[in-house]
């Protein structure tokens, strides 16, 4: 794990309030894997005091790509940063997703959950068959589709307002399209998105034998690196695990959402 001052090499808007940023992040970019994340410190000043967790959406040698939505103080500060400016990056953090082969991979993204799934898709597409279910509020937030196109066999879209794809929740779409068609027993679902989406998927009884079901959790974090015990997730068999060091990707059968 390293903490480095990283220069912004590209910063662009993908949709209203959604940005993609490429950082020169040296060794961190070189070793980080899908499922992992970084913590960003945006300013020398103490407001905000804590660093902010963001998933890795892609890498390219010593460059790291993050995709974020502006929701509060920290992301607003990030939005204001210009190409050439720097910020601090701590990483890689969390456990990488274990590489798999010859599986049927179902990716289910809600909103910005698409970001970590892009990195994952790039790694898994060589040796597996990928399907993407992607839901967003509206057409303009269905970002990154051109990048998923060459990676996936099939892409199904949903929007809250029906402006593109099915109108409604992506989980409904997933269940409706997946279930009538028997799935191979090698199916793995990776879900990333808001908590209600993960809960819905976690609670649904998929009629798929041997189904593995992983969720990308975005629990509120203190340190991001295992030292503050601030990010516990309840295990089904009692006790807490840490999102930051035991996750953030969890087998949804093992935890309580």
């Amino acid at each position, binding site marked *: 794990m390293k903490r480095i001052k990283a220069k912004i090499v590209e910063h662009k808007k993908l949709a209203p309030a959604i940005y993609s940023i490429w950082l020169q992040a040296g060794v961190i970019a070189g070793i980080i894997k899908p499922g992992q994340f970084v913590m960003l410190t945006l300013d020398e000043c103490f407001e905000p*005091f804590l*660093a902010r967790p963001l998933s890795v959406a892609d890498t390219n040698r010593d460059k790291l790509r993050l995709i974020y939505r502006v929701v509060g103080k920290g992301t607003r500060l990030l939005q204001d940063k210009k190409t050439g400016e720097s910020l601090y990056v701590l990483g890689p953090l969390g456990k990488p997703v274990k590489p798999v082969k010859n599986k049927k991979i179902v990716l289910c993204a809600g909103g910005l959950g698409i970001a970590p799934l892009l990195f994952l898709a790039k790694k898994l597409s060589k040796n597996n068959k990928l399907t993407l279910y992607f839901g967003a509020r509206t057409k303009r937030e269905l970002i990154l589709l051109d990048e998923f196109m060459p990676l996936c066999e099939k892409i199904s879209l949903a929007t809250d307002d029906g402006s593109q794809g099915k109108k409604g929740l992506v989980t409904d779409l997933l269940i409706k399209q997946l279930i009538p068609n028997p799935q191979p027993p090698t199916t793995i679902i990776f879900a990333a998105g808001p908590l209600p989406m993960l809960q819905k998927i976690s609670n649904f009884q998929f009629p798929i034998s041997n189904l593995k079901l992983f969720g990308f959790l975005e629990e509120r974090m203190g340190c991001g*690196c*295992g030292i503050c*015990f*601030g990010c516990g997730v309840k295990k089904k068999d009692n006790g807490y695990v840490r999102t930051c060091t035991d996750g953030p990707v969890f087998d949804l059968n093992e935890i309580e959402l």
Partner: protein
Amino acid sequence: MKKTQNIKIKNLIFKNPLILASGTFSFGDKFISVVNQMGGIITKGITLQPRPGNPMPRIWETASGLLNSVGLENPGIDAFLKNILPGLAQLKTNLIVNISGNQVKDFTALAEKLSDADIDGIEINVSCPNIRETDKMLGQDPKTVFQVVSAVRRKTDKFLITKLTANFIDPLLTAQAAKDAGSDAVCLVNTLYGIALDSNTGKPMLGGIFGGLSGPAIKPFALFCVWRVASRLKIPIVGCGGICSADDVREFLHAGSSLVQIGSANLRNPYAGLEILHKLSDKNFKGGVK
């Protein structure tokens, strides 16, 4: 970097005045290279029985600080001694175990179990805002502080720091009690009480409802407590509260601390202790306000 000066208190030598504060650096099992360069590390608070900790969220950011209601998540003293402590044997710095409890006999039992352990000291935490079994913190009553510290002192010769609160009690009174009971030093101060509510619904933001306030926000208050006790009582003081820079460390040393603890700053940046150490030159501080 110039070498910082050793600090000796009782029988214990600290290679520099920087200690990683309890609850902000796991048990000393992470970022070992950072831990080893510090003057010491204090473990997450350990209790007699395992504690699962509080529901989420446990951390809530506030202006220049944060609230935490981690709730003393820890595996309990037995599991600590069996599973965690052996892994810390190679640490090249002072290892101090922070202990917490609801009543005097918890501390007696904890001290007994730690008296033969391979550790350099014990920090008696009578000031945790997340112990909810009692209405008051133990540390809010000088008599109770005296009882707790005496009980621990009877069980062990180890270096003892008593970690005090300044919530609704003058720490001068409890520092005096800790001293009278044989504490080798006092830590000033633990977190302030704090709460945050959803402004729309009124729902508490922390799973534990309220919590402890830490970080730069509380620094002027923590420094005041150190200055107040240092100028009235002769006992080594470990300053704590909002320390984020070498200048902050110098302020606390000037106010009368012998050592300092770095807490929330580690959450922001786990290398904070190291960065502060690098910026701390070998000035020969004399306590007391000029």
